[in-house]
């Protein structure tokens, strides 16, 4: 079976580097599945899960803020933060989800509201990825 090389890199270092058979990521315009031999593409990523399909298994990673660069034999995901499901600190994600919810309840000015919304989205994404609930 054909495979494609996937790299996930963040400013704090590489997170993932392996051969997979298919990558599914959430881009700004919707979900995008990449198979080996895809034409070179660049797309911004939303806050969401990246699914890395190998023969029988699927690995999950939570990414936020970044973009995806595709070449025929290689996919690079550049994200401001990215964690594999196994590396996610569940307690921390739950804590920040709680904090964000409290901020949304407080109804502060618009900037804070937007930031809290994003923080909540990131936290929920992490929790979902951790639980494999995609």
């Amino acid at each position: 079976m054909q495979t494609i090389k996937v790299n996930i890199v963040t400013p704090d270092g590489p997170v993932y580097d392996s051969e997979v058979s298919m990558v599914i990521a959430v881009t700004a315009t919707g979900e995008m599945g990449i198979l080996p031999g895809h034409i070179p593409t660049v797309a911004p990523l939303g806050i969401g899960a990246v699914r890395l399909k190998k023969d029988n298994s699927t690995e999950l990673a939570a990414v936020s803020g970044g973009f995806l660069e595709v070449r025929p034999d290689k996919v690079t995901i550049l994200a401001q933060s990215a964690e594999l499901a196994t590396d996610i600190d569940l307690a921390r994600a739950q804590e920040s989800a709680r904090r964000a919810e409290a901020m949304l309840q407080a109804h502060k000015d618009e900037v804070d509201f937007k930031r809290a919304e994003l923080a909540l989205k990131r936290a929920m994404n992490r929790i979902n990825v951790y639980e494999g609930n995609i």
Partner: protein
Amino acid sequence: MASLRDIKNRITSTKKTSQITRAMQMVSASKLNRAEMNAKAFVPYMEKIQDVVASIAAGSNETHAMMMTRPVQKTAYLVITSDRGLVGGYNSNILRTVMARINERHTSNDEFVILSVGRKGRDFFAKQGMTILESAIALPDHPTFADIKEITRKAVGMFSDGTYDEVYMYYNHFASAIQQDVTEKKVLPLTDIQATGATASYEFDPSAEAILEVLLPQYAESLIFGAVLDGKASEHAASMTAMKSATDNATDLINGLTLSYNRARQAAITQEITEIVGGAAALE
């Protein structure tokens, strides 16, 4: 001449000081190791992002507000210093360079603003009566991207909303454990994006503008993050060197003091013997 007891006290206290500076030197050495590793971990990200930015810039005629030079009414200086002292010339070198540049370019404090990473820089510019728009202090020794996201986001955001029209960044570049060079870098507008030779032509989803919209702020932010990592490595290296020379100086001082201590002790013994002999002679 100082008494025996005085010299002894000085030797003891200098020894204590040298113990502390030696410990600090070793702490800095291990922190430097970590900082170098962090800086290395960042390299792939930076290279990749540069790659993509360059190939987009080369592959399309798109321009973006962040790449355009506009008439400069206000300049921002992003200065990366340390939070604490005991780092030799680390902070003073940077602050001197920035002050020289400011004096050369500007006649009034209204023409520029300061963005400061590090307490030393913030305090210094506040004392000069300059406007400090943002500051990030008490960063951990090994900052992660999340730690500095706040200030990078603001620095890039204020350029976009027109608070200032260009951003210069100053930091100590880590050349080696014993050499750090003050570096000036123009962060925004992004004018020095060079197209690399072998670039694939990409499909853009949804469009090149939309990608640049996401990519360029991220690129500018990672430039700043890279400088902070570089600065941190330099800080630990500078601190290590400063503590090493402090330890060496203390050792020299102790050697000198031990010599005069022995000399004074010898003199005291000789004097005692002379007195005893004199006393005995008087009895005869």
